[in-house]
């Protein structure tokens, strides 16, 4: 990739970081905190996504 294209992309990503930072800070300071039961309910479907992706990778490798 051209160097200047990389610089433009880096600037855009940096702007995204800059825009996202206040929201992240607000969520960390004032967002609701989950219990271990809440996290289990979230990890279950995300774990299923991970297994599904492993399955897809195996499928395209064969």
């Amino acid at each position, binding site marked *: *990739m051209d160097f200047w*294209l*990389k610089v*433009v*992309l*880096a600037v*855009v*990503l*940096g702007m*995204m*970081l800059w*825009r*996202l*930072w206040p*929201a*992240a800070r607000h*969520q*960390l300071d004032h*967002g*609701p*905190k*989950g219990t271990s039961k*809440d*996290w289990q*309910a*979230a990890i279950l*479907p*995300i774990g*299923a*996504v*991970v297994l*599904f*992706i492993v399955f*897809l*990778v195996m*499928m*395209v*490798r064969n």
Partner: protein
Amino acid sequence: MSEFNPTVARGRDSVLSTNKVIRNTYILLSMTLVFSAVMAAIGMSMNLSSGSSMMMSLGALGLIWLVLPRFENSTGGIVVVFAISGLLGMGLGPMLNYYMAMANGPQLVGTALGGTGVIFLGLSGYALTTRKDFSFMGGFLFVGLLVVFGAMIANLFFAIPALALAVSAGIILLMSGLILYDTSRMIHGGETNYIRATVGLYLSIYNLFISLLHILGALSGDD
């Protein structure tokens, strides 16, 4: 007997308005996805360069940041959503052409497309049927996005293939979390604007597809 009960009435109104937001979001989302696919096909047939693809993505980003907030409460917002999905869809053209040129390209693209659909429907179905509140994931997801953006900036200059794969894997996990988070926000009244909800879910699906295609392309064994 016909005593007015504001709690019940408000509760029913709230449920009706939540259902309306969910219904409108999924209708608009399905239309934008179809439109995006059509624009991607046009982008492929036009053999666009990767530079023009990047310009379209930047244009879509500009619309999301600068134009959408002004129109999100009016019907003009729907036009903006279609413009965003059209630009992002057309911008996919060069990347899809690159993968389609690989020996197992059609299989890769088809698998990534189907996989994205299954993941989105599965996670949305999970959030809609369990009706769990995933708002507690907000902090984790936002910090995760910051870390991923930081890693993407670093990898633009270091170009480490393993880091690129790790970023794609991280994006898939974060977008999966965001689908749960956004769907749960619609269910529990945290998001009452279907235009904003549609753009959020569309971007999650879009990023999920790109990252899944990248991982499948890298690990398919076809160099």
